[in-house]
């Protein structure tokens, strides 16, 4: 697992230019939303929403593009067959990929958060650090669990899944409430969006950071429970998808490169 996280982390450190773009670009997006909110006279607290959402975007993009596409990509360079031939646990490979991605993305997310707070003078109060940490960790586990599950499915349904990803990226920005409280969408849409762990994670974090003004969707405890359920669901799902992918791949010859 450590072995698998390693190239990600080292890779990230070796190419610091990524860091610049990955912090800078989200900030531009954040700035645009904040200016817009100021123009329409939205409450001050919206700036905080946007900064937090912008920071969490990093994880979402990492899961959607990097994590989910990881196996597909590893197959293309021929690493996948080496992983599957090795005696280590397959879940450890995935978990290693997730940890590596998480670690590196955290660097971006926190830089975005910090810069956002400083530049846009966001005020927030950490009322309950334990709950906040719990929500954050659960969100990440559920989110990366989803990524782990998707990575196997991507491998099997490659190109179609890719299109799906691009198709979903923007709408999910919208419905997951990256830049505004998800409740604004109405109960049912918000509930449906909650299948994406980041939706409730963001909502809960906002409630914990911005208190009453944050227009929470569900009570925090409920949100934590749902996040926990999502985390378990996705991790188990990842396991199933992985076994399924390996079996189908071995049967149909889709795990390995043809031209070798």
């Amino acid at each position, binding site marked *: 697992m*450590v*072995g*698998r996280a*390693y*190239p990600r982390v*080292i*890779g990230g450190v*070796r*190419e610091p230019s990524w860091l610049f773009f990955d912090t800078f670009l989200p900030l531009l997006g954040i700035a645009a939303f904040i200016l817009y909110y100021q123009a329409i006279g939205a409450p001050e607290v919206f700036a905080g929403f946007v900064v937090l959402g912008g920071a969490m975007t990093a994880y979402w993009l990492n899961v959607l593009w990097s994590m989910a596409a990881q196996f597909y990509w590893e197959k293309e*360079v*021929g*690493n996948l*067959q*080496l*992983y*599957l*031939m*090795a*005696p*280590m646990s397959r879940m450890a490979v995935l978990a290693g990929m997730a940890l590596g991605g998480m670690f590196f993305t955290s660097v971006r997310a926190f830089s975005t958060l910090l810069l956002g707070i400083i530049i846009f003078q966001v005020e927030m109060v950490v009322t309950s650090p334990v709950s906040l940490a719990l929500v954050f960790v659960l969100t990440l586990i559920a989110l990366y669990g989803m990524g782990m599950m998707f990575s196997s499915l991507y491998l099997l349904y490659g190109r179609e899944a890719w299109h799906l990803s691009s198709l979903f990226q923007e709408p999910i920005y919208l419905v997951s409430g990256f830049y505004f409280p998800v409740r604004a969408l109405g109960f049912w849409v918000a509930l449906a969006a909650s299948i994406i762990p980041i939706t409730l994670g963001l909502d809960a974090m906002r409630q914990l950071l911005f208190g009453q003004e944050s227009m929470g969707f569900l009570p925090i405890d409920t949100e934590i429970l749902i996040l926990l359920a999502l985390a378990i669901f996705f991790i188990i799902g990842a396991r199933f998808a992985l076994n399924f992918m390996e079996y189908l791949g*071995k*049967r*149909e*010859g889709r*795990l*390995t490169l043809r031209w*070798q």
Partner: protein
Amino acid sequence: MGNAIECRNLTRHFGGNRKKEPTVALDDVNLTVEEGELFGLLGPNGAGKTTLLKILATLLLPTSGSVSVLGYDVQKDAQKIRPRINMVSGGEVSGYGLLTVRENLWMFSQFYGVPGSEARERIDELLETFSLLDKAEAKVRTISTGQRQRMNVVRGFITDPDLIFLDEPTLGLDVSSSRTIRDYIRKWVRDGSGKTVLLTTHYMMEAEELCDRVAVIDRGRILACDSPQNLKRGVRKDSAFTLELTPFAGIEEIAAVEGVRGTSIDSGGSKATVRIVTEDESAIADVISLISRKGGKVLSMTKAEPTLEDVFIQLVGRGLV
């Protein structure tokens, strides 16, 4: 010693549905490789070599038949096989370009649970053997193809497997890299008690000089399997010829002359070189009369010691390209 590999009636199909016949990559293959053997699979592109290796390496399921590796069934006991095998393919670009050679090797050694200090020691030793020590800290994306392939070979041996699969390990490599790799393979099998190598190649010389036994494979079928010496004995001494000709239209008709078992024709430049395996010496007279009838001219003719290439020509009816 036991058998490292046993295939019984192994068949593997790809694709195929109600409208389309499946590709038969392996067709009723029976093969036994003993522990401690350096075994070669020799066959042209598309013969099914890689498919066979992938099945043995637990990466692909057989369509039918039974396969055991190191005494375990590849379908039921893959997890028992995996710690003891490894595979390296020619032209492989695995690993991570941003990591150094040493880091990549370390990473792969950890997938097999090689203890840290042991891994470091083996990495140094093998890098030295493969003249890569000065590239140890170079990022993989900056090293040459030959260096990369040597690194891949090191990756295969770093986990100290009992059985290693080498899929065209010297494909497209320069002479000296190829030699380093071949020398190491030979030494590894000789020095290790019961260490087994299964390598595929379409280089005749490689099979001939390296392997204890060779299986000739074409279109998914094993056509012959024996030591290179015995295989060559199967070609009669007075039946292999090399002709140099002026090229002429219809040169490939030589293969159809009665008594000719197979030909390998190289008609690149101003003269064509034809390797012919015949049933007996008398067929060569008909070949020569065909050549003059077609307007070609025989520049030279030599009776050749049979090589593995002649074995192949005789079995398959054409040369190995």
